[in-house]
């Protein structure tokens, strides 16, 4: 019986000839990523070693990544002290994949991992962040876990009691119309599947649209797979994966494409044609409350946010800058831009995008997660409405339960910044 790509990855990582959905395995972990919540991981890690007579030493420091992104630079003493503790732990154990608060090497974890070539096709990646699903874009099985589970990985080097998830095959066909792209596709999919439609399942992406999609776009669809509940999204490795890893991530060692078998068993198949897809909006307060932009056009906005691990990459900023070039952000609306990494920030600076944003009246912020989850800058006032290229619109997500968040693509966000209301970029946001 054939295997899906995740069944194959888990078989290899568990040293088994094969696995199938429902099997329980203990896969070796290739990369274990944490951010500020590394503070809790360290605490739980020390708990595991308590009264064992053994020194708490991680199984393999070269496979641990620690990246500061949620509250950078620290917004208060508690975060700063957490940063200090994690920094000390990284130094003590020689953790080289440590990305401190820096303009050169810093950034959002889900951008740093691909950018630095830390993720490879066929890898098992775990992260103490639900959007760890992102790294399926490079053909890895990558999923979010809690801090205690991460502490267990640090101690043992394996993920314990992992049930091999069933897979939903998503086949995407057609060419995106102008101003429609990966974000609209994944919002459309989440709307179809619902917020729990893929709970405990993998979304494996196929089809000509995915083949033609850049790694940047694949990161968007895998990133938000978790919003349908998915354990992971995954795009089996192909030429584009190899191009990205070689030319953008500087990977020189052999790349092993792990692919699903032709006779793999899928739980179900979802087919989507994007050729007539419209720009999509996720309305408050669930990500599966998805509507075509026309149905919510005209909604007044006090804040626009472009950035995050979902849509803070160079092509996202380029799409927004193209629309905002020579235009102004509407009075009464504020616009925040936060590139996903220091590298992207520098590239956007060089390309002139940041200047375009600033001349339009947007505030360009340092790379980080802050506004997306209401933990650091960009909070909303009572009754305010935001439109964001981020990934969640839960009640209170942007720091205030009395506000509303709508989600969209960079093109819709930019077109709407000019008008101050939700605007279809096809209808003259240009």
């Amino acid at each position, binding site marked *: 019986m054939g295997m899906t790509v995740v069944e194959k990855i888990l078989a290899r990582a568990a040293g088994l000839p094969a696995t199938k959905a429902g099997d329980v395995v203990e896969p070796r972990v290739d990369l274990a990523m944490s951010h500020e919540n590394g503070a809790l991981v360290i605490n739980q890690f020390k708990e595991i070693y308590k009264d064992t007579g053994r020194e708490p030493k991680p199984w393999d420091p070269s496979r641990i990544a620690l990246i500061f992104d949620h509250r950078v630079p620290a917004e208060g003493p508690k975060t700063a002290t957490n940063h200090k503790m994690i920094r000390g732990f990284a130094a003590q154990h020689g953790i080289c994949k440590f990305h401190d608060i820096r303009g050169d090497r810093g950034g959002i974890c889900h951008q740093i991992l691909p950018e630095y070539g830390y993720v490879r096709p066929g890898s098992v990646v775990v992260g103490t*962040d639900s959007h760890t699903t992102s790294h399926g874009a490079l053909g890895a099985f990558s999923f979010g876990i809690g801090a205690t589970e991460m502490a267990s990985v640090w101690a043992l080097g394996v993920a314990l009691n992992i049930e091999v998830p069933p897979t939903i095959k998503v086949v995407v066909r057609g060419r995106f119309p102008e101003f429609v792209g990966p974000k609209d596709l994944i919002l459309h999919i989440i709307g179809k599947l619902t917020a*729990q439609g893929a709970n405990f399942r993998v979304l494996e992406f196929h089809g000509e649209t995915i083949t033609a999609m850049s790694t940047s776009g694949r990161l968007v669809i895998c990133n938000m797979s978790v919003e349908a509940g998915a354990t992971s999204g995954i795009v089996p490795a192909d030429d584009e994966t190899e191009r990205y890893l070689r030319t953008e991530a500087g990977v020189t060692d052999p790349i092993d494409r792990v692919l699903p078998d032709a006779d793999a068993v899928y739980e179900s198949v979802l087919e989507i044609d994007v050729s007539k897809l419209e720009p999509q909006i996720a309305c408050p307060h669930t990500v599966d409350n998805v509507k075509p932009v026309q149905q919510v056009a005209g909604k007044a906005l006090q804040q626009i946010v472009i950035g995050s691990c979902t849509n803070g990459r160079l092509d996202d900023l380029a799409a927004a800058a193209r629309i905002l070039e020579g235009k102004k952000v509407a009075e009464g609306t504020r616009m925040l831009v936060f590139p996903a990494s220091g590298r992207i920030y520098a590239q956007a600076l060089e390309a002139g995008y940041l200047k375009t944003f600033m001349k339009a009246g947007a505030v360009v912020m340092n790379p980080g997660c802050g506004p997306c989850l*209401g933990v650091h800058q960009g909070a909303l006032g009572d009754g305010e409405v935001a439109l964001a290229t981020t990934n969640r619109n839960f009640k209170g*997500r942007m720091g205030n339960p009395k506000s509303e968040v709508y989600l969209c693509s960079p093109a819709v966000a930019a077109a709407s910044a000019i008008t101050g209301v939700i605007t279809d970029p096809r209808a003259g946001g240009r």
Partner: protein
Amino acid sequence: MGKVVLKLGRDISTDDIYPGRFMATVLPTETPQFCFHDRTEFNARLNSKQIAPGSFVVADENFGCGSSREQAASAIRGHELNVVARSIARIFMQNAINLGLSLIICPTIEASEGDELELAEGKVVNKTTGKQFATVPLPPARQAIIDAGGLVPYTRKKLLEQPAR
């Protein structure tokens, strides 16, 4: 036996259970104060110890969706509440099991705030309405972690079975 102290709808996110702005607080001893923080009245009742340990939070489908923040599970655990939900999001379920939070999957549960619930073998009994609802057992692989008292002792045991590094 315990009272239903909070009845929730579907897709209750971990942002609802433990808002992001308190995420710099990580220790299980400190997180309970922010449990359901933005449900102001309920949070106040929790923090003033007006809610008895063993009380029930009852939710519809997809409880605990969203962020992997473990604080959401540790905050509820700290108040010793039971959670009965029609279905539970994956990461939250795993976090709850790892920390020893009492979590019951009960796809047909019907209960209102104030109802008395009792946990029995394979079912939840609503003493107030007299109705019974079948529960879904956790997969055996997860039950092993619960039986060990959580993931910390479970991992410790595994660690001690290996030679020291």
